[in-house]
């Protein structure tokens, strides 16, 4: 409870400092421009936030705990990291969709290495973003070079995450609400 408020306070302070810096260094017009851009962003992402959280909550009811343990669990080895990487690249939607899905995967038995590989594969090499944004804007030579250099990173990060002594369970996530036992 306290930690969640601490997060809120830290973020608020960061945003307010950035706002003050814009106001002082760039003037009032830039400040107003930033506020307008924020409003546009909120309107754009609100449907994805609600859709993403709904998807996550519904999937958590459907996927039985431990269902993915064989594929992405702690014993899944390199194959588990490759499966998680492929799943991350195929994952559509923005961060609001991908991070709630991490909760689903974790509850279904994916270990921390697989979760990290999934997040990295999605954020670095998500197919949808490459096709919709990177390829048209930056051209195929650059996009291919960038993809080639990014391809091994999720597996590397997954191996590192398994080796690091930092534990994480879905109960550590603020958005996680354990399902109450059925009466």
């Amino acid at each position, binding site marked *: 409870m306290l930690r969640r408020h601490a997060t809120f306070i830290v973020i608020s302070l960061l945003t307010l400092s950035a706002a003050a810096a814009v106001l002082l260094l760039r003037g009032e017009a830039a400040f107003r421009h930033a506020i307008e851009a924020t409003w546009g962003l909120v309107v754009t992402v609100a449907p994805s936030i609600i859709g993403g959280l709904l998807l996550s909550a519904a999937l958590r009811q459907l996927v039985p705990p431990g269902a993915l343990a064989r594929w992405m669990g702690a014993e899944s080895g390199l194959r588990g990291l490759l499966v998680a990487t492929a799943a991350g690249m195929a994952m*559509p939607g923005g961060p609001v969709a991908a991070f709630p899905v991490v909760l689903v995967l974790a509850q279904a038995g994916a270990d921390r290495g697989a979760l990290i590989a999934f997040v990295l594969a999605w954020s670095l090499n998500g197919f949808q973003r490459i096709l*919709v944004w990177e390829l048209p804007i930056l051209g195929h030579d650059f996009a291919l070079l960038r993809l080639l250099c990014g391809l091994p990173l999720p597996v590397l990060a997954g191996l590192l995450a398994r080796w690091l002594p930092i534990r994480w369970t879905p109960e550590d996530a603020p958005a996680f609400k354990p399902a109450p036992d059925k009466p």
Partner: protein
Amino acid sequence: MTIGVIGMWVLALGALFLCLRRSPTVARRAVNEAGTSLVRVAPVMMMALPMAAFVSELIPAGWAERWLGPDSGAAGVALATLAGSVLPGGPFVAFPLVLGFLKSGAGPAQMVALISGWAVLGLHRTLSWELPILGPRFILLRLSASLVLPFLAGLAAEALLPLFPGAGLR
């Protein structure tokens, strides 16, 4: 962008339909859990989203070509990684910015590091989405496991650059 959102809603409603077929109680529980998550997640997001807009107003003009040119080498790659990590906004902000940098003379390997730094470390995405949804411990784990990787991607791009002559200025 909108196609992604529509796709997600189709998936979400499909999953909700499967819950409903199992039993109305299960479907109601899914909706309740989604609502609880939203209430917990929204305040931090609403404070974090304006940060992207403010930070993009603070980026000085002309810094990329001065510091991230093709001859800036490993130091340029490291600096680009760092710059990518504080680059705000989604792909609709980041890719047009990178195009602008490339056109004004930034090196392709440095831009690979910048995009990788943005995608992997992206401070703004971490604070607005990952922190409210997954919590600080997950971020600690993920950042520890991936901190040096964008830099490595930049170095790899530098080595592979001769194979991709079209990666630079178009």
